[in-house]
């Protein structure tokens, strides 16, 4: 739509300006906030281009989780970038210019956005997935059906990657010592009474909304990844306002360690169950031999649940490891 041209131009201008500002700014806390702003603008662009699930994930992960983790890291270190003397490097500038020019030249070859004669539109595979997803799997959201069923093995790999990241963080940061809540922290709590009351009202709602996103992923944007991140965000909000001791009371690290593994086990377990039931690995049709669509529904439900559990536990573990290290300093 030509009406969207000025909107797209404005949003991309915001992206470029923010990126330049992040590169130039010296105060790293401000840079972290600006990177959150960058994610917000990205999500607007995704929404305009009809990529609803991606926008959802960008909203949950980019603006919330990544910003919080950056801030936790900055809280551990010095937060002003060392000012280096300005230097000129002609070969570096030349390399950057040539690479940029080559990319722009190559992007001129890309097909026009949403044109009818691009390979994506013409290839019979697109037709097959989009059309047969309704009959074979029977859920309205094709993104979820492709992610969890047609490409389920790939998603299993992604879940294992998240699990590995959580383990790596645990290995690097070690066991978080039990933080002693200092008096300074408690006095801060009493000063922010409004914040505490409103957070107590909000946190249950966030958790219920995460469950809604988890199970509504078949019908609208959502699914395991987004739901896990939103669930973790709710508990992170609780931990930020009420202190890490309270957050650890709700989600102890030993429980989180087991949950992270449990999610991957659920996912793999569904695959093994389908093998035992006579089908291929992760072929959900085998779960209910008489009605393949029911088997697909059940398979997708269990698989997304596994993904959601792993993601939520991994994000919480990351936050508790980073923030706990600061408290124990």
């Amino acid at each position, binding site marked *: 739509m030509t009406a969207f041209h000025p909107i797209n131009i404005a949003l991309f201008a915001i992206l470029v300006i923010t990126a330049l500002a992040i590169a130039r700014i010296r105060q790293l806390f401000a840079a972290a906030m600006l990177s959150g702003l960058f994610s917000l603008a990205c999500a607007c662009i995704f929404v*305009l281009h009809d990529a609803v699930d991606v926008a959802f994930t960008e909203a949950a992960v980019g603006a919330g989780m990544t910003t919080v983790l950056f801030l936790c890291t900055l809280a551990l270190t010095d937060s*002003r970038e060392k000012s280096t003397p300005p230097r000129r490097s002609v070969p570096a500038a030349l390399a950057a210019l040539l690479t940029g020019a080559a990319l722009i030249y190559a992007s001129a070859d890309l097909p026009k956005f949403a044109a009818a004669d691009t390979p994506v539109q013409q290839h019979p595979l697109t037709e097959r997935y989009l059309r047969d997803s309704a009959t074979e799997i029977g859920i309205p959201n094709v993104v979820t059906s492709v992610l969890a069923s047609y490409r389920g093995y790939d998603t299993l790999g992604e879940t294992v990657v998240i699990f590995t990241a959580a383990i790596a963080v645990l290995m690097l940061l070690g066991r978080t010592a039990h933080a002693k809540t200092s008096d300074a922290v408690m006095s801060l709590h009493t000063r922010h009474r409004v914040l505490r009351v409103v957070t107590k009202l909000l946190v249950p709602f966030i958790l219920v909304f995460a469950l809604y996103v988890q199970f509504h992923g078949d019908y609208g944007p959502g699914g395991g990844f987004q739901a896990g991140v939103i669930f973790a965000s709710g508990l992170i909000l609780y931990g930020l306002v009420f202190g890490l001791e309270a957050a650890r009371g709700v989600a102890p690290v030993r429980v989180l360690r087991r949950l992270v593994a449990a999610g991957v086990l659920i996912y793999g377990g569904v695959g093994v169950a389908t093998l035992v039931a006579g089908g291929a690995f992760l072929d959900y049709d085998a779960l209910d031999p008489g009605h393949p669509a029911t088997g697909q529904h059940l398979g997708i439900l269990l698989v997304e649940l596994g993904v959601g559990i792993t993601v939520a536990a991994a994000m919480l573990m990351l936050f508790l490891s980073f923030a706990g290290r600061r408290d124990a300093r």
Partner: protein
Amino acid sequence: MLLAATLALLAAMLLALGRALLGPTLFDRILAVNSFGTKTVLFIAVSGFLAGRPHFLDIALVYALINFTGTVAVLKLTHHGEFGAAGAPEQQEGDL
């Protein structure tokens, strides 16, 4: 009218971005990013109606929550004296 609303929201977002880049203290930047987040929520809601897809409202709802979490996070995790408000930055050992 929806299109005009979208353009007006974009203009407002650019103004908020200007404040985020300019603001002398960190508080100005936090305020600007929080404001940008609220405008993003409205932008997603309005452009959802413009494109005829009310499913976007779930995303707007998530943003309203995440925006709040991000603001609280930056308030709680910033070093005392890093805000650049009360003179020279002090040592980094403050508890916040």
